[in-house]
């Protein structure tokens, strides 16, 4: 292990290789800024074991999300940072364009800044004097060159900075995503200049978010993620993989280790993005999903399923290459894009070491599908180990129809509950099943929390939520038993002429489930033996519906509220009890 950044000016030693990195890693110290000498607390590895060579005249693109280590890597190549481990050798003069001009001073004129910047990047004064006209010419600044830099726009600064770099002599040029600032005309000019460099045998290393530039200019591209090389090879292939990585949308900057703390919000309730991508197939295609089957409990193949029935989703796939540590995922969305539930084997703590080339299937078994009747879309995917890169991802490609009672209000699911306040006899007297003939009209709520109508003699006293131990709470664990106690006032409506309606809404206004209860007494006690809502905030709305008049006599939208937390990362709105099963066979070659 040697730490060195040697500059070999004699080109004979490395005739082809201009830059060569061997197992380069970079560690940043994490320090306690509150202690006296900024004590060292831990490490942050920005780069891990990066190895590659760049030949003379080659254009290398480096792509990756923000925070993937691109700039650190460029800094190491340019020599402004030294690697913690590993070797780097650079043959020739390196110039870097990292920011809008290194050491630019607002107080000085453009011309003075050219000399200052030139000196900082290591050019002799004479060289700058010789090229001064070319620099000013290329920058298109005209008379502005004698004005103080403070009066420049950021595009003008970039033009000046790029012109200085582009006019001075170098062997290797490192450009960090700065070219995006200029206008299209200047971008074209930069592009042409970069092409000139390429033709004249200079080595270029570029990072940008403009995938267009990568595909047009680069000979080779490297995809970085979390400081590691995910891919290196042809630019268009790297760009495709990067696109797949972006579309997974499950990237988060920070530790990859699973959070032990309770999940407060799944944040994936409504996903407009994935809806617009429905029907698309993304991924690196190292494994291919061949077929998806929906079966009932007996294993019969069907595309319709009954609410609260058993559902098996069976996915057949073919692995083309060796896949290490894959994960399977299946997600169900409602037709309008509401994320119902999307478990995967990673969140369920399964570990699949590897899949060899061959065929196989995986299967997700729901014993009790709580989803309300309606049309749903199913996504299936095979992920890499961090759920960052999809090998194959069929986004909403499969349609599933759930049948059952008429679902006029567009409920999302049907959770089991018991109304405790009702005795056996009162159940006989007040047939609440009538509600399906007179469903309440919920259109008047239209997502405005706090909308209410409380005429005299009718109203809500309180809504209280209790856990298993009878303690009043506002936050519950997913799958905990929850009891709703609702105290209401009703002096007007006879029990047979209407019913009390309790609606559970998601924070963002999606209607989850409605419960109709008779208007007996002045208190209602609803028990959910298992409330399977996934993390997030929920609201409770209440109303008294008159079946005779066909309208709400009293309502309060969003009267109560509660939160759910969970120790798992499952996405969606409702937790559905499930089981995974998989099986694969290699075709014997490996």
């Amino acid at each position: 292990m040697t730490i060195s950044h040697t500059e070999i000016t004699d080109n004979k030693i490395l005739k082809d290789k201009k830059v060569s990195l061997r197992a380069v890693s970079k560690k940043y110290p994490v320090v306690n800024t509150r202690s006296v000498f900024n004590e060292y607390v831990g490490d942050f590895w920005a780069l891990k074991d990066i190895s590659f060579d760049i030949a003379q005249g080659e254009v290398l693109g480096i792509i990756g999300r923000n925070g993937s280590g691109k700039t650190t890597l460029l800094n190491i190549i340019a020599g402004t940072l030294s690697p913690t481990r590993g070797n780097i050798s650079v043959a020739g003069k390196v110039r870097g364009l990292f920011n809008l001009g290194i050491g630019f001073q607002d107080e000085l004129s453009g011309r003075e800044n050219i000399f200052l910047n030139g000196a900082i990047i290591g050019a002799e004064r004479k060289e700058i004097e010789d090229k001064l006209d070319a620099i000013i010419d290329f920058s298109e600044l005209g008379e502005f060159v004698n004005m103080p830099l403070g009066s420049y726009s950021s595009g003008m600064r970039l033009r000046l900075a790029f012109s200085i770099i582009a006019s001075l002599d170098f062997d290797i040029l490192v450009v960090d995503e700065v070219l995006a600032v200029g206008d299209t005309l200047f971008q074209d000019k930069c592009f042409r200049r970069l092409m000139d460099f390429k033709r004249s045998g200079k080595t270029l290393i570029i990072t940008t978010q403009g995938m267009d530039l990568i595909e047009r200019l680069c000979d080779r591209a490297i995809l970085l993620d979390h400081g590691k090389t995910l891919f290196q090879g042809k630019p268009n292939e790297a760009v495709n993989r990067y696109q797949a990585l972006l579309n997974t949308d499950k990237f988060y900057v920070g530790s990859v280790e699973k959070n032990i703390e309770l999940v407060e919000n799944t944040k994936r309730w409504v996903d407009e993005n994935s809806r617009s991508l429905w029907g698309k197939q993304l991924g690196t295609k190292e494994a291919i999903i061949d077929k998806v089957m929906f079966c009932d409990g007996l294993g019969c193949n069907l595309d319709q399923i009954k609410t609260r029935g058993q559902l098996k989703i069976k996915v057949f796939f073919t692995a083309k290459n060796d896949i290490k540590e894959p994960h399977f995922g299946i997600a169900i969305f409602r037709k309008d894009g509401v994320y119902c539930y999307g478990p995967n084997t990673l969140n369920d703590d399964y570990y699949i070491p590897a899949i060899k080339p061959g065929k196989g299937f995986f299967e997700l078994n729901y014993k009790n599908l709580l989803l309300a009747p309606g049309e749903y879309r199913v996504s299936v995917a095979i992920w890499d180990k961090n759920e960052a890169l999809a090998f194959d991802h069929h986004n909403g490609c499969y349609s599933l129809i759930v049948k059952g009672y008429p679902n006029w209000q567009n409920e999302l699911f049907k959770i089991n509950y018991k109304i405790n306040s009702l005795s056996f006899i009162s159940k006989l007297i007040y047939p609440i099943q009538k509600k399906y003939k007179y469903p309440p009209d919920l259109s008047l709520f239209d997502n405005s929390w706090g909308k209410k109508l409380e005429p005299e003699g009718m109203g809500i006293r309180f809504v209280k939520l209790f856990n298993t131990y009878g303690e009043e709470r506002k936050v519950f664990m997913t799958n905990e038993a929850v009891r709703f106690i609702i105290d209401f006032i009703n002096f007007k409506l006879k029990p047979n002429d209407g019913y009390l309606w309790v609606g559970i809404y998601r924070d963002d206004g999606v209607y989850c489930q409605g419960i109709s209860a008779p208007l007996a007494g002045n208190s209602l006690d609803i028990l959910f033996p298992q409330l399977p809502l996934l993390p997030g905030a929920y609201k409770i709305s209440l109303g008294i519906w008159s079946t005779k008049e066909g309208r709400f006599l009293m309502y309060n939208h969003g009267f109560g509220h509660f939160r759910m937390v969970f120790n798992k990362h499952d996405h969606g709105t409702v937790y559905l009890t499930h089981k995974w099963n998989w099986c694969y066979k290699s075709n014997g070659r490996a």
Partner: protein
Amino acid sequence: MFGIIKEIINRRSLIWELALKNLKIRYSRPFMGFFWTFLTPFLTAINYYIVFSIILRGKVEEMPFFLYIMSAVFPWNFFASSIVCSTSSLVDNKNLIKESRFPQYLIPVSIVLENMIVFLPSLAILIIASLIILDGLPIFILYLPVLLIFHSIITIGLSIIFSILYVKWRDLKYVLEIILLFAFYLMPSFYSIYLVKDLFSHAIFKSYMLSPFTGMLSLYRIVLFKGFYVDTQARIGVLYFFLSTIVFAFLVLLLAVYLYRKNRNTINDYLSY
């Protein structure tokens, strides 16, 4: 160590550009521009004359009191402002350091150079004042360039040391302010060195004379003021001043080189925050 000196010489155009940049920023907008570097010390001298010579009637045996104070204040200003500016210089210029590839210590060096350029006019005023008031200059004025070189070496060395330490230890700025204040008042700037002689034991006075601050200051006076050398040599001897300055300059330079060698690869990692 010689590698670093060679590097300084190789990158002299960069150091010059950096110093020039700071000077331009300081003096390009004011109407009087660089003339302020003459005007400020001149007005300071008049101020000292009014306060110390006319009102306070302060006295030292060798010369008018205000001249005595000026000889302490001007070199000290050069030293102290260089140190204060340099200490936070690496952090202030982090964009520059993190994005280009040049040795970090060039920044404190350029700051010392900048302050040196500002110091020279006030030195000229001091020489002229000495020439007029004391009727001539001592022969030792020929050693002034040597003295300036040693003074710069000490200043550059300390600037590099403090700028590197400051990257990790941000209390240093405030600690330094106090140390500089103590140093200025404890060295014989406002009073004659003989006042200290009989206060303490002989050993303490010896070490007082050996302190580089006392040494530098006394050397400036020997070089600038006619008759100062003869007087001092006769009463306490001047060998100590030479010794302490030379030894201190070398020690500081060695420490600076050592610290830079040890930290140059990790400084950039700590600069971000």
